[in-house]
């Protein structure tokens, strides 16, 4: 079902994305000079603080006007402006490559939009696919030039493999060099979704969870006797779907979503629900903005 050749976006949408910027709730340290305030002090034009001179300090930073007034040496510290590393985590397990419209395609587009916004504000973007097997990762692109490898990578993320969300999340958390805004696009259809989210929140990422479900999952249109085959190769299940069972399903789905939302709010995770029947453009321009993820 992977529509590899389909373009992710229309050009007009990209122009709209240019006007958006990622919001972070707190300053985060980066590696290279960028456009984001860093918790570190550095060499921008923005004043941050004074501090008494100690031996070994760069004498170029002494504020001579202050010395003239107080006859003591003070260093004038400036706010450092560094780049941010945006972590895009894409759940491409079997369950995601399903639905009409396809959930994986939706996740690709959300990740691409998010990544493009980040790139246009000179941030570093790393993309990781969370399926089992050899880790698929785009190590880090920066600047608008990086949009092409980003889109290219996203378009080529394969779907359909099984996977353990928790294990891959753990691996990612251990390997990530620095923290930053983290976007997780997943359907969380994994018995260990809680552990996975808990693992991610062990490091101070600023996590945004885009919970993607297809309309066929929200309102299953089955009636009669079926054998349900798990897309990730799990145990199949025989059901006799009638209204009562569908009502139960609906109830469980609601409970499950409420549980996720509660779990996320308890750990400072920004939870955004996405129904793939809503066009990606509307979702990004309206929902993400509304939830304070982009500006």
């Amino acid at each position, binding site marked *: 079902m992977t529509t590899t050749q389909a373009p992710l976006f229309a050009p007009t949408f990209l122009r709209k994305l240019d006007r958006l910027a990622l919001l972070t709730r707190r300053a985060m340290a980066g590696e290279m000079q960028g456009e984001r305030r860093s918790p570190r002090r550095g060499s921008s034009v923005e004043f941050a603080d004074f501090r008494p001179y100690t031996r070994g300090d760069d004498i170029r930073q002494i504020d001579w006007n202050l010395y003239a007034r107080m006859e003591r040496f003070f260093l004038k510290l400036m706010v450092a402006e560094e780049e941010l590393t945006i972590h895009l985590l894409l759940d491409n397990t079997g369950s995601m490559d399903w639905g009409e419209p396809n959930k994986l395609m939706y996740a690709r587009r959300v990740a691409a939009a998010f990544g493009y916004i980040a790139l246009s504000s000179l941030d570093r973007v790393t993309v990781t696919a969370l399926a089992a097997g050899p880790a698929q990762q785009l190590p880090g692109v920066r600047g608008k030039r990086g949009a092409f490898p980003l889109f290219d990578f996203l378009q080529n993320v394969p779907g359909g493999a099984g996977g353990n969300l928790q294990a891959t999340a753990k691996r990612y958390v251990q390997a990530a060099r620095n923290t930053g805004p983290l976007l997780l696009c997943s*359907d969380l*259809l*994994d018995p260990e979704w809680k552990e996975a989210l808990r693992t991610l929140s062990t490091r101070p990422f600023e996590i945004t969870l885009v919970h993607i479900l297809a309309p066929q999952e929200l309102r299953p249109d089955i009636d009669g006797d079926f*054998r349900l085959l*798990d897309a990730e190769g799990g145990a*199949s299940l*025989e059901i*006799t779907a*009638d*209204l009562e069972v569908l009502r139960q399903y609906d109830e469980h789905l609601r409970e499950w979503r409420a549980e996720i939302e509660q779990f996320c709010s308890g750990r400072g995770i920004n939870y955004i629900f996405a129904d793939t029947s809503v066009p990606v453009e509307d979702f990004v321009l309206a929902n993400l903005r509304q939830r304070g993820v982009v500006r």
Partner: protein
Amino acid sequence: MSLLAPLALISGLIIGPIIVAMYLLKLRREERRVSSTFLWQRVVRDVEANAPWQKLRRNILLLLQLLLLLLLVLALARPFFRTTGIAGRNLIIIIDRSASMSATDGAPTRLDAAKQQALTLIGQLPDDGRATVIAAGGQTENLVSASTDRRQLRAAITSIQPRTGGGSDLTPALTLAAALSSREAESEIAIISDGNVRPLDTLPPVPATVRYFPIGQRSANVAVSAMAMQPSAAGQTLFAQATNDGPEAATRRLDLYLDDQLFNAYNLTIAPGADQSVVVEVPSQVRKAEARLVDETASDALPLDDRGWAVSTLGEATTVRLLSPGNRFLEVGLSRLPGIKVTVVPTSTATFTESAAQVPLTILDGIVPPTLPPGNLFFIAPPRSTEFFSVTGQVDFPTLRPTPGDDRLLRNVKLSDVSVLKANRIQPGTWARTVVDGDGGPMLVAGERDGRRIVVLAFDLHNSDLPVQIAFPLLLSNIVSELVPGSGADTAQLAPGQPLALLVDSSITTVRITHPDGTVVTPELRNGQAIDSATDALGVYIAEQFQGEKLVARQRYAINLFDAAESKIAPQAALNVPQVSGLQQATTSERVGRQEFWRWLAALALVVLIVEWLVYQRNGIAYLRQRWRTWRARTAG
């Protein structure tokens, strides 16, 4: 339980596995790939935890289909029970509808139970079987003859109404049935009765199997067995008698009503088989008396005979003309008869001016006038021939031989001790029936000709010892009752079913007879008689004669059951009917009937089919229910 068509079970063996195979094929459920069974697992776990039969539910359709198949196959195999019933193809049903069948120990009465039994027999009739329905008791009626139309048979059986009068004589019915069955092989006669019938032993052997279906359980019954109201010195004497026909002593309250007002009540305790009577003086203006037996223990099985009626005969004396050279016996005997006023006319009288309505009876004792008077005639030793009979001589010392049978004139009369010196030899016309035969000629003949009733006694009373016998007043009373209906000893007492015949004058234009239930009958006047034969209901009948608009006479008649044979209601377990096969007793409880019940199985199969369809469509039904709920919630809100 046995099967008529056991081969049909094989179809079940064939179709059953096909259903199972098809179900197994269908059981390969449609496969549907879903993103994850993660959410579904929780649902299935919940649903199965909430309803333990959920696991069964997936098989419920198969089970229902197999049940449906089982029922249909069983129905095809035509199972039946052996019941008491019939086995033949030509069935003749005789239903007893006599008074004793009105006992309330059936469902609700014996007759209803008998009808039910008859309907069951019709149901057991083989497909090409024919049935005849005969209702016995009173007049025998052949309701349906050799019909295969079940609806017609059922309608005929249902239409049978009880007959209070006429007794229960199955002889004509059985004779008819025997004649019908002799034409057809495999005939069976079913007698549905309580067995209280006249003995059938003397019948010629019946050429068919006779089965007897006894009806009824209880035998407790106390009846009002006699009732009369006679003029007396102070007014009237009312006599009521209750007889216990049950097997145990019974206690009853006898309520006496005079002109529909409660007069007195008596507590009676009567030994089985015994009777107890109440004699009470009542005022002379009382026209009508009724006795009711009230059973406080509700053990009386036959309410029909718990009521009796008597009407007053006071002041309604009938004039009887007596032409006699002087007959002390006759004068005394007639004067003792209630309601009779005797006018003695000289023997020389040649013309009679009074009409038949004024003088309904003339007694010609040893005299035959040149012109016979109008009305009914009672000849005693007629000296010469008349238009009705011829006198051809004399018989000396004739012996009296009453003709067999129960002639009304000989009721309670015993003539065996009567000796006659000499009698006239009489040759009556064809109108007459011989009541008492003698050597050389009939001694007593009776009959009806041109609307006139005539009785001829062949010997002079002075030439016999009859007047000094107890038989004389009884015979006289019977003869006067016969000749003057509505008078005599049993004044205005009639048995149910007996036609009410009124002798009316030619000046009478209309006769109205009011029945106990209030209906009014105006019988046609023919030959100076008005006859109402619909006298099956018990109670007091009022007959009124009109001249134009003017009421000229009113008579009351009490119709009472007073039939000891019908009041004995103890059901008989066996019935003796001689049969060609040598059997002397009708078979009672041989289990030869086949009660098929495939219809019930088929009906059950239909129900299962509906249930199966509902189960199959349960989603649609639940959807409709949900729609209904939301609609109601919306309209309520």
